[in-house]
C-alpha cells in the first residue's frame, strides 16, 4: 500500500474530503464577513452568534412549529437576515460615521448578549438536531464511509458560495454593490439608494451566517457557544484570504479546511493552531492577504 509519512494514501483521500467539507463552512462564514466588511467597513463580531442563531432557529422551528429541515433551510436564513436588518437599521447605522472600532465593539457586545441569553434559557450542553430522513445513511466509498449529510453540506455550501459570487460579480445589483464599496457618495449622487443597499447587504451577510447555522445543526451539537468557537478561525481565514475578495474568501476557506484536515492526521495536537500559523506567514509575506487588494 502506498503511504505518505506512514499514513496510507487511501486514508488521506478521506481526510481531504473531510477537509473540503469543513472548508465549505469556513468559506460560507468568511464570505459573509467579507461581504459585510466590503460595504459597511464593519468587522462583524456578531457573525458567530448569528450562525448560532441559524442553528437554534432550525431547532426551535422544528420543536415548536414542526417546520422541517427543508423549509427551515429557506425560512431561517430569512429570519436571521431580518434580525440582521434590524441590527443595522437601529444600531449600526447610528455609529456608521464613527471609527470602525466602534462597529467592532458594538457587534462584539451584541454577540455576548445573544450568547449569554441563550446560555440562560437553553444551558450550555445544547441539543441534538436530527438529520433529515432523505439525507440519512451514507455512501460506502473505497477509502471511507461518507455520510450522505456531509456530502450534502459540501454541495449546498459550495452552491451557496457560487451563487453569492455570481450575484456580486455578474449582476447589476452586484455591480452597484461593488461600486458602492469604492465610492459610496458618487453612487448616492447617481441616485442609488445607498442606505437601503447597505442595510440589505448587512442582512444578506447575516443571512449567510444563518444558512451556515442551519447546515451545521444536524452535525454539530446545537449549543450557544458553537459560534464563538468557530468565529476566531473564520477571522483568520478572512485575514489569510484578504478582505473584500469574494472568490478569495471561498478558495481560502476550502484550502484552510483541507490544511486543517491534514494536520489532524499528521500532528493532531496542532490542528487548532495551524491556521493561525498560516495567517502569520501570510501577514509577513502579503499583508493584504492572498487575494486582497490595497486597502
Amino acid at each position: 500500500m502506498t503511504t505518505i509519512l506512514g499514513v496510507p494514501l487511501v486514508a488521506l483521500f478521506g481526510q481531504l474530503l473531510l477537509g473540503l467539507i469543513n472548508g465549505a463552512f469556513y468559506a460560507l462564514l468568511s464570505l459573509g464577513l467579507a461581504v459585510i466588511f466590503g460595504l459597511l467597513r464593519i468587522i462583524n463580531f456578531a457573525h458567530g452568534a448569528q450562525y448560532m442563531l441559524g442553528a437554534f432557529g432550525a431547532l426551535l422551528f422544528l420543536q415548536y412549529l414542526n417546520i422541517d429541515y427543508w423549509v427551515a433551510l429557506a425560512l431561517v436564513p430569512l429570519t436571521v437576515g431580518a434580525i440582521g436588518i434590524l441590527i443595522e437599521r437601529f444600531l449600526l447605522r447610528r455609529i456608521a460615521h464613527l471609527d470602525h472600532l466602534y462597529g467592532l465593539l458594538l457587534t462584539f457586545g451584541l454577540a455576548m448578549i445573544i450568547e449569554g441569553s441563550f446560555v440562560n434559557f437553553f444551558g450550555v450542553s445544547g441539543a441534538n438536531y436530527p438529520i433529515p430522513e432523505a439525507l440519512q445513511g451514507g455512501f460506502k466509498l473505497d477509502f471511507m464511509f461518507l455520510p450522505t449529510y456531509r456530502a450534502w453540506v459540501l454541495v449546498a455550501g459550495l452552491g451557496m458560495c457560487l451563487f453569492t459570487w455570481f450575484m456580486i460579480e455578474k449582476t447589476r445589483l452586484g455591480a452597484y454593490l461593488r461600486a458602492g464599496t469604492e465610492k459610496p457618495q458618487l453612487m448616492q449622487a447617481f441616485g442609488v439608494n445607498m442606505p437601503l443597499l447597505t442595510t440589505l447587504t448587512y442582512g444578506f451577510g447575516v443571512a449567510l451566517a444563518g444558512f451556515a447555522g442551519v447546515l451545521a445543526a444536524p452535525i454539530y451539537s446545537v449549543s450557544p457557544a458553537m459560534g464563538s468557537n468557530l468565529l476566531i478561525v473564520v477571522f483568520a481565514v478572512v485575514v489569510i484570504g484578504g478582505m473584500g475578495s469574494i472568490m478569495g474568501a471561498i478558495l481560502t476557506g476550502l484550502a484552510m479546511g483541507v490544511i486543517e484536515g491534514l494536520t489532524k492526521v499528521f500532528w493532531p495536537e496542532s490542528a487548532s493552531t495551524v491556521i493561525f500559523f498560516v495567517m502569520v506567514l501570510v501577514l509577513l509575506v502579503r499583508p493584504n492577504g492572498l487575494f486582497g487588494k490595497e486597502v
Partner: protein
Amino acid sequence: MSATQSLRASRLAKAVAIGLFAGLAATTAQANISDNEVRIGYLDDLSGPYSDLAGPGGYEAIRMAVEDFDNKVGDKKIVLFQADHKNNADLGANTAREWIDRRGVDLIAGLNASPVAIAVSRLVEEKNRFAIVSTAAAASLTNEYCTPNHIHYVYDTYSVSNGAAKAIVANGGKTWYLLSADYAFGHAMEEQVSKAVAENGGQVLGKARHPFPTSDFSSYVLQAQASGAQIVGLASAGSDLVNAISTAQQFGLMDAGQTMASLMVFITDIKSIGLQTAQGTQFVSGWYWDMNDESRAWAKRYHERTGNMPTMVQAGMYSSTTQYLKAVEATGSDDPKAVREHMIKTPINDMFAKDGRVREDGRMVHDMYLMQVKAPADSTSEWDLFETKSVIPGDEAFLPLSESKCKLVNN
C-alpha cells in the same frame, strides 16, 4: 523599679495574657461555631462549559441540603454564598481568599476544574478552613495535592477510567483506540486507561489527542475506524464529548461493530446527544437518579425545583453538604480538623451512597457503577437514559491506599 525592669515585667504580663487568650481561643474554637454562623461558599462554573453538570443546579442542591436542616445547625444560622470561578484558578483562589478573610466562610463546596480545586485546597490548608471537592476529577487531589483540610467526594479520574477499562476488557473488549482532550485531564485519563487496558490483557492500537475545544471530530473518527480497534475510548468532556459521539454515529462507527466507551459522562451530556445517537455507550458513574427509592425520591424533589434531573455531581453536592452539616452538628464545631475527623469516622448512608466512607487521604470511597446508555425503545420516560451493567465495589473502584502518594498516608 527601673525602666528596663518594668518593660520586662510588662512583656511577661503580655506573654501570659497572650498565652491565656490563645488557650482560651483554642478551647472555644473546639466547642463553638466561628462567627456564630455556619458559612458555606459554593464556588463553581456557573456560566461556562460545565455549568449544566454543576453550575446553578449545584447551588440548588446545596440549598436543598441547607433547607433540610431548617437553615440552622442547633441555634446557629447557615449562610450560603455562591460565585462563578469561570474555570480560572486565579479567579477561584481570589474569590475563596476573599470569602475566608472577609466573610468568614467555613466550607467551600463545588469546585469544578482541577486547577481551581487544587488552588483552593492549598488555600484552605493555609487558612485552616474546609473544602469539599465534588465536581473536579483529578485523582491528584487526594494524592500529590492531598491536604488535611479537604475531601474529594463524588468520583475521580482513576475511578471512572480504571473501572471502565477493566470492566470492558473483562467483557471482551481487548483492542482499544484512545481519543483524548489535549490538556491535563485528557492526558491523565489516557495514561490511566492505557495502564488499565494493558494490565487486564488488552491492547491499545492507537491514540490521538484533539485540541480543546474541537467542533469537528470527523477526522479523528476516521482514524479510529482505520485502527480497527473494538473499543474507541473517549477522554473528553462536555461539548467535545457530545460532538465526538454524534460524529462517530454519523460515520457509522457503531454500525460497523466498534463500541464507544466514554470515560467521563454526565446525564446532561446524554440528554443533549439523544438516545438514538448515544445508545450502547458504556461508562462509569458514581450515581444515577434511578438507583433506589431514596435516589428517586431526592431526584424528584430536585426535578421539581430545577426542571432537570441531577447529575452525579449535583447529587454529591447535596450529600456532602448534608454530611458536613451533620458533622458540625455532632461535634458542635466548624473546626475543619474536628469536622474531617468526624466525617472519617462516620459511614455515609444516604441517597447518594451506601456504606460510603471518607479515607484519611480525603477520598470518599463508595460503589461506582458501569452504565450503558439505553436504546430509544427501552426508555420509558424523558430521563430514563441508562441501565446499570455492573456494580464496582468501592475498594476496587478507587486507587488503593497502599498506592497513595498522599502525605497523610504512611506508605
